[in-house]
């Protein structure tokens, strides 16, 4: 190929990346409405295809065998995962995919590092810096996401795990990591140190996610999502590819926005979530169950619950993580439809941090064919509870705890909640009187208008369905 033709090819490839990046932006924009979202996602996929095809024209590529093999294997695994994952396991899925993205960035940076370390090309300061950043961010994203996945999958404890001297070691490791990274920028040839850098960054990722408990997962997943974008952008800096930088920056921004929304929804700052002030506070309380003593609650059977629902005029369902655990979304929808057939007004109140990831409940209810206009966000539905006859809380706890409004000593004080306690009657589906994730007792359960329906949510709802048929 002659000089000018190869120049034209380079420009064409560059333009293809620009088209891809534009398609990503338009695609993300279309994700803002359920009507256009599917098309938007497709545009993103087309953008990705264009980017990959353009890359294959890159003249640095001399062998395609391994590329094609890798693409086929990766696509097959990705497709299998995407087709087989249950909607209730979506948080794990996203965590896992995040991890793969981060891992890929770490490896690409590693490959670039090898070239410079081998001395084929003389390193420049900016390239070395971006390689080290890419390795660090990629590795933290990788191991952090894998831990998040394992927690959500319940392979490791979903509870807050505080390692001894956690903060000290995390800080010490962070400083050592920066030190080694800095040294490698100047002296890239030291392979042992490079491997140490990778190892420390991986351990950092584990340290970072391990202490974070289940209910804070929406924040962590959002943050890791942001990291995976930043890792991709860093790879772009390493390879001097603006297409990568733009795409990575978009994802980074998206993750930051979601992280902020999740933190706001819990009225906590990001450092507070990450460094476990929450856990410390409740632990000092001398045992979570202590405050539950001496208070009475009223339990109810499926039959009475069905009667309450059947003679209501307005019913609001409040789903939480317990709904996902017992996979009860289809039963909820069925009851919703039965009630609607009786002319009862039915809606669903969705707290921003209900579940284990942003929008978790919406996806589950959509899977069960609940029409999305019935899913209502917290700010809009809170005024409706006053005029609601029955609010049905399914496996939600902290997001409906009135203590958040008035009890200054409560760890969740100030968190915006769903004002379920303003409804005429509240039916709470729960396994037992055990406290929620945060170990905070919920006064809603002892309210005189609350009825506790104990048992697995799915089984309880199936029993309610049976009873509703007889009413």
């Amino acid at each position, binding site marked *: 190929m002659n000089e000018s033709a190869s120049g034209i090819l380079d420009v064409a490839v560059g333009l293809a990346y620009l088209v891809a990046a534009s398609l990503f932006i338009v695609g*993300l924009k279309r994700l803002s409405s359920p009507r256009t979202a599917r098309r938007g996602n497709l545009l993103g996929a087309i953008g*990705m295809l264009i980017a990959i095809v353009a890359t294959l024209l890159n003249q640095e590529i001399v062998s395609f065998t*391994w590329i094609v093999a890798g693409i086929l*294997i990766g696509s097959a695994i990705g497709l299998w995962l*995407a087709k087989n*994952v249950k909607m209730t396991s979506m948080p794990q899925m996203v965590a896992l995919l995040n991890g*793969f993205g981060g891992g890929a960035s770490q490896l690409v940076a590693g490959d670039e590092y090898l070239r410079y370390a081998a001395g084929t090309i003389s390193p420049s300061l900016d390239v070395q810096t971006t390689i080290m950043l890419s390795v660090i961010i990629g590795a933290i994203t990788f191991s952090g996401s894998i831990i998040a996945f394992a927690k959500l999958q319940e392979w490791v404890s979903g509870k807050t795990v505080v390692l001894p001297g956690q903060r000290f070691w995390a800080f010490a490791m962070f400083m050592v990591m920066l030190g080694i990274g800095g040294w490698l920028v100047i002296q890239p040839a030291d392979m042992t140190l490079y491997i140490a850098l990778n190892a420390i960054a991986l351990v950092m990722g584990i340290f970072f996610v391990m202490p974070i408990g289940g209910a804070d997962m929406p924040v962590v997943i959002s943050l890791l999502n942001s990291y995976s974008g930043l890792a991709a952008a860093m790879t772009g800096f390493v390879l001097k590819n603006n297409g990568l*930088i733009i795409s990575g920056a978009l994802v980074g921004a998206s993750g930051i926005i979601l992280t902020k929304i999740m933190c706001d929804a819990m009225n906590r700052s990001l450092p507070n979530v990450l460094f476990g002030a929450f856990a410390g506070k409740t632990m000092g309380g001398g045992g979570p169950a202590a405050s539950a003593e001496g208070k009475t609650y009223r339990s109810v059977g499926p039959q009475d619950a069905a009667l309450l629902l059947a003679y209501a005029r307005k019913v609001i369902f409040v789903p939480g993580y317990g709904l996902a655990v017992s996979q009860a979304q289809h039963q909820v929808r069925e009851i919703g439809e039965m009630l609607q057939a009786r002319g009862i007004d039915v809606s669903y109140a969705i707290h921003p941090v209900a579940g284990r990831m942003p929008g978790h409940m919406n996806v589950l209810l959509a899977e069960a064919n609940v029409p999305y206009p019935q899913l209502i966000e917290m700010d809009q539905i809170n005024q409706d509870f006053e005029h609601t006859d029955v609010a049905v809380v399914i496996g939600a706890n902290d997001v409906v705890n009135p203590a958040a409004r008035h009890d200054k000593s409560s760890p969740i004080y100030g968190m915006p909640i769903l004002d379920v306690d303003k409804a005429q009657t509240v039916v709470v589906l729960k396994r037992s009187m055990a406290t929620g994730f945060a170990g905070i007792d919920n006064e809603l359960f002892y309210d005189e208008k609350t009825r506790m329906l104990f048992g697995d949510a799915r089984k309880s709802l199936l029993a309610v369905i049976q009873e509703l048929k007889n009413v």
Partner: protein
Amino acid sequence: MEGLLVSLYVFVLAIFVGFEVISKVPQMLHTPLMSGSNAISGITIVGAVVVAGRVESPVSTVLAVVAVVFAMINVVGGFVVTDRMLQMFKARGDTSK
């Protein structure tokens, strides 16, 4: 260094674009947004393909091929699962599947 500066400009401006575009996504679609944007972060595939295409050392090839596999799982898994989720969002109780 000048190239780095230009890249930095691109990076920062793209973050602002990201903020603008994404702040309008409703809570209802947060999960698909996350998995969809996640798929986009699989753009690292571009870098992985470039390094996998060079023939340098066996170690380098192994790293690169694993990177291609990882990135491709991210890309295909992300887009397909997002599509699967989005097709479930319906305005009315449409039970046809």
